[in-house]
Structure formats: structure tokens, C-alpha cells
């Protein structure tokens, strides 16, 4: 079954974000319209300054929009009412004074859940991300890839409707990143979450996504939405297929056409 035939869970209409910097107005996002479908893996790609991270932060409620509307299942998203959204940061941001399990239960603890109950749920998520047996370790004892797994488990523990991921693998080495991509696809399928994933790596986006939202800078806007046809179980082999490279090239062409314009002007 094609996941893109599911119903729309999030409707974004006419989203604008302006920053003021040294008395100069900067249009970070201009008139963004987007429908997010339940259960899909949606990637946002684009060069630096296209507003993809700003977009994700607005959806989470970490920063305020200037105008426009975001509705999640018909309910407008207000700032910081974030129990239905889980955010995975680029830096893992694990608290060094907390063990792995205490870090993982953070969201539930902040929501006022009893520690034992929260630990049980956190443990489930640690199992899902493959970190059983490390719950009593401290973050400094873990590798970069393992820390990102905890980061992911922490966001999943609050059982969000949508998972927002901001270049979570950017700081990892190439080999770990590939392994984490495959792991993420497995976790996405098992947890059945909707994912919005920001990256600046086109091949990462094509490998992970059902749809790739290509963004352009100055002002930040959606340029094109590319649907990736391979929607069933993905394996590393997909990366060798001509369809994969075709999709990567298509997106690269869109992005590069803008960079040429930028250089000309």
C-alpha cells in the first residue's frame, strides 16, 4: 500500500517568517504551503539559508511564525504545545549528568509521569533503537552514533504524532551515518511515525524519503516536491539502482540551477 494515499495529518498554509537583523529585514520563509501525510517520511533538502531548519523549528514551536497557519489534525499549532511533536536535534543534547535511561525519559518526566512508569516506556524505546544494556551508561561513555540513537529514543518516548529531525546525522562519520540511515528506516517502520527530516545531503534524502521537499534560498521557499517511487522496504541496494541516481540528479539540478542564478546576480 502506498503511504502517500493516507490522509493528510498536517496542513501548512501561507507560512511566513521574517527576521530582523541589523535593521534589515530577512525573509527566512516565504509563503510555504505543505501537506504532510500520515505515516510518510518527508525530507526537506536545500542549500544553507533556505530556511529548512527554521521551518522545522516553527513546526515544533521553538520559534514563532510571522504569519500563516499550521494545523495538526485540524488543531492549530501554538507555540510550545509540543506533546504531539518530538524533536531530534542535530547535536544530541544529552544531559551529561543523566544516565541514558534518565535522558530518555526526560520528556515523560517533564510531563509529570511517575519515574517507574516513565522508565518502563523509555526502556521500550531504548530496545527499539538497539541500546538495551546501555541504560545505566553516561553519555560520555557512548559513541556519536549511539548518542544519536538515545536522542532519537528520547523524542520517541513521548509517543509524538510526528517526529521532527534536524540534520541528526550531520555530525557523524560517513560509515556510521549510512548505518544510522538504515536503522532509522527500520525504526520508522516499526514505530509507524510520521517523520519530517531536514538534511542538506541529497542522497540521504532520496534514500530515506517517500517525498523530498526541495527548498531554495533568499527568500526561503518550497521549489518542488519530488515523490520517490520506491516506497516499500528499502535496502542499501537501492543506492545502486539507476532510479536512485536519477532522483538524486533531478534534485541536484533544481538546487544547482538556483546556485547558478545566485552567482550571476
Amino acid at each position: 500500500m502506498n503511504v502517500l494515499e493516507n490522509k493528510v495529518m498536517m496542513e501548512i498554509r501561507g507560512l511566513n517568517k521574517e527576521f530582523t537583523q541589523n535593521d534589515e529585514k530577512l525573509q527566512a520563509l516565504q509563503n510555504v504551503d505543505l501537506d504532510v501525510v500520515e505515516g510518510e517520511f518527508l525530507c526537506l533538502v536545500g542549500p544553507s539559508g533556505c530556511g529548512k531548519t527554521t521551518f522545522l523549528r516553527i513546526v515544533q514551536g521553538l520559534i514563532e511564525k510571522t504569519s500563516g497557519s499550521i494545523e495538526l489534525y485540524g488543531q492549530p499549532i501554538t507555540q510550545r504545545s509540543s506533546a504531539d511533536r518530538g524533536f531530534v536535534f542535530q547535536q544530541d543534547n544529552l544531559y551529561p549528568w543523566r544516565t541514558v535511561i534518565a535522558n530518555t525519559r526526560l520528556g515523560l518526566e517533564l510531563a509529570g509521569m511517575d519515574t517507574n512508569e516513565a522508565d518502563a516506556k523509555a526502556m521500550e524505546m531504548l530496545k527499539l533503537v538497539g541500546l538495551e544494556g546501555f541504560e545505566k551508561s553516561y553519555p560520555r561513555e557512548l559513541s556519536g552514533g549511539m548518542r544519536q540513537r538515545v536522542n532519537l529514543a528520547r523524542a520517541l518516548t513521548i509517543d509524538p504524532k510526528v517526529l521532527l529531525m534536524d540534520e541528526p546525522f550531520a555530525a557523524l562519520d560517513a560509515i556510521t551515518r549510512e548505518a544510522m540511515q538504515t536503522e532509522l528506516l527500520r525504526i520508522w517502520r516499526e514505530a509507524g511515525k510520521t517523520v519530517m527530516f531536514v538534511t542538506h545531503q541529497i542522497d540521504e534524502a532520496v534514500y530515506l524519503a517517500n517525498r523530498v521537499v526541495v527548498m531554495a534560498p533568499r527568500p526561503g521557499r518550497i521549489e518542488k516536491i519530488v515523490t520517490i517511487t520506491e516506497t516499500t522496504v528499502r535496502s542499501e541496494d537501492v543506492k545502486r539502482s539507476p532510479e536512485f541516481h536519477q532522483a538524486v540528479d533531478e534534485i541536484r539540478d533544481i538546487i544547482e540551477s538556483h546556485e547558478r542564478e545566485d552567482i550571476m546576480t
Partner: protein
Amino acid sequence: MSDAVKSTVEEADGGEEGRTGFFGRNESPKNRKRRRLITSLVVIFVGWELFGRYGIENRLFFAPISEIFLSGVDAWASGELQGHISASFQELLYGMLLATGIGIAFGVLIAVNQSVREHCDPIVSALYATPTVAIAPILITAFGLGITSKVAVVFLIAVFPIVINTTVGIRQTQESFIETAYSFNATRWQVITKVLVPSSIPFVIAGIRLGVGRGIVGVVVGELFGADRGLGIFIFEAGQTFDAAPQFLGILILCFAGMTLTGLLQWTEKKMAPWHHFSLDKE
């Protein structure tokens, strides 16, 4: 050298756990630390003894360590020393407990509340630099010769480094840690208790260590201005009779107390902040 012997030596040299010590044996880092401390103490005490016997022979200024020890045995036997130690210890303990509790609370408040910070921060800095011991006579007059006045002196002198360190510790918290808590819908109070305070623990403990050092000075100075019991008084009275040995005894006890408390705080930091590691340490 036979091959067998050579390989043993190499192994001992390259071993991760311990190195070949001076006496040619393998020792753990803990034992090495202890051995080095004992070596230092032995050198100091032997030097002290020799200097007291053959350097400065005038007993008005100096006493060999053996005589200091004997004067301690005497003072202990008469029951006098215990009373002084207990009085000074109580003054330090209650003063430090007050300074720690109020210092942390006030430090957090200054760090998180802009209005409080702008009102109080310059004043705290000014008071930190003020020689607060100078107001000890006023506190003695106000609270009398008992331990209350000395507790007040210790509190006043020790509270400022704790306030300042707590404030600095909280304000150096990584911004992204706070953002993470907000992404989970944390309230402001939760950010303070779950993020800011734990992240500042190493700074707070360093502040308490600074406070203890100053607090010990506060105990002695406070007692010199007026007290019926305490190590400060013990030293002062020995000075009145030109007896150097008990004076040094009092000083050594205070020195030992400072070392013990510092050690205790270091241990507390290791327990409460095991994540806080200094990579230049070998251990």
C-alpha cells in the same frame, strides 16, 4: 640481562594499570598518590623538627614538631582541646550550612531573574571584595561571645563566593540543553530544577570550597575579636604566655580541618557530578 628479565621489565613499564615505582614494584595510581603524599609529609616534619632543634632555638617563635605534638597530648588530656575544637567546628559547620543554603538559593535567583540580577549583581561583587572580617567586632557586639556571632561571621564571609559561583555555573549552561527541555514543553521552573541547577553543580561545589577556606579564616578572626572557647582563642591565649608550641598546634589543626573539608568536597563532587572530568588527569 636475560631475556626473561628484560621482558618483565618492559611489561611493568608499559602496563596500563600502574607504573614501576621507585622501589621497583607495580603500584596502583591510588597507592602512588598516597605514597607521594606521605613522602611530602615526612620531609616536611623531619625538616621542621631539625629546624626547630638546630635552626631557630628560641621557643618564643618556633617549636619542633615533637614538642607541638606533646603540647597537643597535654591539652587533650586536660580536656581543654576538645572543647575548643568542638566550638570552632560548630561555628564553621553552622556558618557553612547557612552560607551554602542561602548562597545557592540567592545565586539561582540572581542567575534566572533579570530584575534581581540588575539590582543585586554589582552589590554582591562589591561585598565579595569587601574585607567582611572587618565587621566581625560589630557582629560580636550584636550577638555576644557565644557561637552565634561567629556563625554570623563565617556566613557573611563564605556566602559570596557561593553566590557568585552558582550564578556563573547557571549562566554557563549550554543554550541547547535549555532548548531541548523547552522542546518537551518544560515550564520555566522545570528548566531551573532539571537543567540549570544540575548543570551548575561543579561550579557550586567549587564555590563551597572557596567558601570553606574563607570560613576558616572567619572562625579564627571572629574568635580573636571575642569568644569564650574555640581554636582562635586557644591560639590567642598561648600567644599571651609566649608559648609557641600550642600556637602551632592550633594552626596545624585548622590546616588539617581545611584539608579534610576540601577532600570531602572533592569526594562529593565525584559522587554528585561523575560526568565532570578533567582530561589532563591521568586517572
